[in-house]
């Protein structure tokens, strides 16, 4: 079981992630709808999340920019990119994202990745 932080501007995807991850026993500890909010939220969290699910195309700061800032606050964050912008895959991985899931991806891929990440800790 992992504590998870969702960053995505699409509310239905929040619902999907919550329904799915909670069904599988994970704990959604924070949700942000844009990059700014994500950065602010992380700063206020006493306990950092074990996994961040990061969208790329969001109003204001994009996922790459947001990832940069989150990693500056906490370099140990495990960030999984979940985006329909395949073109930013290389940038995301180079920046330190743990994985890049290209939307639409089978949810098994997400679950497996989360399990691997928490097992590695």
């Amino acid at each position, binding site marked *: 079981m992992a504590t998870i932080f969702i960053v995505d501007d699409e509310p239905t995807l929040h619902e*999907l992630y919550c*329904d*799915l991850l909670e069904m599988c026993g994970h704990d959604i500890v924070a949700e942000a709808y844009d990059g700014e909010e994500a950065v602010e939220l992380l700063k206020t969290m006493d306990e950092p999340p074990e996994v961040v699910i990061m969208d790329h195309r969001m109003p204001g700061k994009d996922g790459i920019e947001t990832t940069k800032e989150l990693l500056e606050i906490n370099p140990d964050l495990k960030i999984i990119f979940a985006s*329909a*912008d395949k073109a930013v895959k290389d940038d995301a991985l180079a920046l330190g994202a743990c994985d890049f899931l290209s*939307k*639409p991806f089978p*949810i098994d891929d997400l679950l497996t990745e989360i399990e691997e990440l928490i097992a590695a800790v």
Partner: protein
Amino acid sequence: MGKARILIVEDEAVVAENLEMAITDGGYEVVGRADNADDAVNAASELKPDLILMDIVLSGKKNGIDASYEIKEKLDIPVIFLTAYSDFKFVDKAKNTEPYAYIVKPFQEGQLFASIEMALYKSQIAKRLKASEAKFRDLTELLPQTVFETDERGNLTFTNRTGFDCFGYTQDDFEGGLTVLQMISPEDRDRAKENIGKVLKGEYLNGVEYLVQRKDGSTFPAIIYSTPIIHENKRVGLRGVLIDIIGRKQAERRIEEEYRRAEFYIDLMSHDINNASQVTSGYLDLLLRMPEFPPKFRKHVEIALNHVRKSSKIISDVKTLSEVQLGEAELTRIDIYPAFASAVETAMSQSRDVEINSDITEGRYFIRGNAMLFSVFSNLLTNAVKFDRHDIVKIDVDISSSDDDLYWKLEFKDQGRGISDHYKKIIFNRLERAGESAQGTGLGLTIAKYIVESYGGSVWVEDRVRGDRTMGSNFILLLPKGG
């Protein structure tokens, strides 16, 4: 030319008579005689002789030189002056009428004929030169481009009508002095100066683009082609053509905008549809994971799930296609093998029993291509598997050098249901068939074709067994060798 027709203007009857006899004997035709200037002018207008023999001293108020002036104003007829030694003082004045020769009386026949022949010949040349000059002047004036000439310092010495119209200068401006650099926008002047120097040194420049400037200060983009004017082996100026390219620039900009717009739509659509597909497929996935989900509906959800994935595949195909068509992917020397191996892997993972036999090996077959080669192989192999209903799908992939040694020839031989001759021709041309109903194989083969063509190669399909399409197909690829 027939007999040359000659008009004699001479006020001394005896001399005139002698002249006519001599000339007629010499094989010319005397078409008339005049003994004073006015008659000479009238006779010249009416008879239009090929040549006039004109005595300088005539009876009456006007002399032969006056007559020559008048004739020259209206007609283009060569004149030979006849003078006595005592009249030689007139010769200087006569010069201005551009006579072809002087004959001093008393004349010798030989000298007379030689002068006549020379005058006739020179006047022919002059006429041709005039015609040729008129032709080039007309062409220059008709050209919708600016034509100009300058001296070696860049002062304009000539420009055509278009030049005046285009730049808004008048004949008065021109006569007051204009330089070619005045026509160039200030920011481009240094470059223009440099280039003028180069052309004057004999360097060949292809058309050079400048921002040029009208009299009112407004500017427009233009290409200037120029060449040195050579006179007595020296470069004494420039001759050039200036083409307004504002229309071309605007068209280029429009096309660029269209490209950007198309890219934008594709990007927007694919991003948002993929996001929506994530929600749909995510929930379908979720349904299947629920312990209480009734197993008898499992199949239905799986079909729905499959189709959501298919729509994502279409989106990614369209993106690939637009990337190929926009020519964004660079070509380098690549090994065929890695792309082929991963395409084989993809084809094998389609939950069918698939056997793919091939002699393609690593480090042996190189082409000029890019990472999209995988899509070509993957589309061909996936199709081959899809349309083969045998329990075990068997595909042979042969590779050989083309007869001209320029290409690697790959043959994908399947044992599927084959392709009709009609369909063989159109199977790769989904885009050309854009108006037709969208059925059939999707975009895979069209993508393959565009990619292969972007490499300078080609792809087509034949029957695996000639004449019997039911035995399967042979998809043939020619890929340009990469050294």
